[in-house]
């Protein structure tokens, strides 16, 4: 059996989990409005459905780790740096959002957006993080 290139495997795996994520978010949304054949939300199923959208997050992390494992040292180094920078940006935005939400009338629950904030941050910073070297002034 032909082995897929790391980037191809990553793209396919990531896309599949993102489709699962979007499907789970929509399904949970409909379920909690009582718009599915499962009827109105009731325990213990409601906890399972509430957790459903978080499962694909674990899947994308596994796909990412496998990509790093199969990549060469340069790709592994820059992906690690991007992951760290995106994590920092996510922590910053999430914390700032939390404080603003606490002290103002800003809407939104916040935490469930963390996943999207991380990947949007990752996409935005990636073109700027192409150097595996730590340069000191």
């Amino acid at each position, binding site marked *: 059996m032909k082995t897929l290139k790391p980037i191809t495997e990553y793209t396919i795996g990531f896309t599949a989990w993102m489709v699962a994520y979007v499907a789970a978010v929509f399904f949970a949304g409909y379920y909690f409005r009582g718009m599915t054949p499962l009827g109105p939300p009731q325990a213990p199923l409601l906890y399972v459905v509430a957790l459903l959208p978080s499962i694909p997050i674990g899947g994308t992390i596994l796909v990412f780790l496998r990509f790093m494992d199969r990549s060469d040292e340069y790709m592994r*180094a820059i992906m690690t740096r991007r992951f760290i920078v995106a994590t920092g940006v996510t922590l910053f935005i999430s914390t700032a959002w939390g404080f603003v939400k606490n002290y103002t009338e800003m809407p939104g629950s916040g935490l469930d957006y963390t996943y999207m904030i991380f990947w949007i941050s990752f996409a935005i910073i990636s073109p700027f993080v192409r150097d595996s070297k730590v340069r000191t002034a």
Partner: protein
Amino acid sequence: MKTHLKALRSEAGLTQADLAGKLGVSRQAVIAIESDKHDPSLDLAYRIAAVFDLPVEAIFENPHRTG
């Protein structure tokens, strides 16, 4: 780290993709090494040296050696 990799590769008539194939890395890795965006590991430096049949320091200048 200053490198002569690009010149050596051109002299050998290799494309970046050719060299990447011989080294078992991505073309992006070769580009990054040539443009000083990545310092190769010792193992990769030895693999590069083996491809060109040269000592590592003939390809990558040792920044710590004086004189």
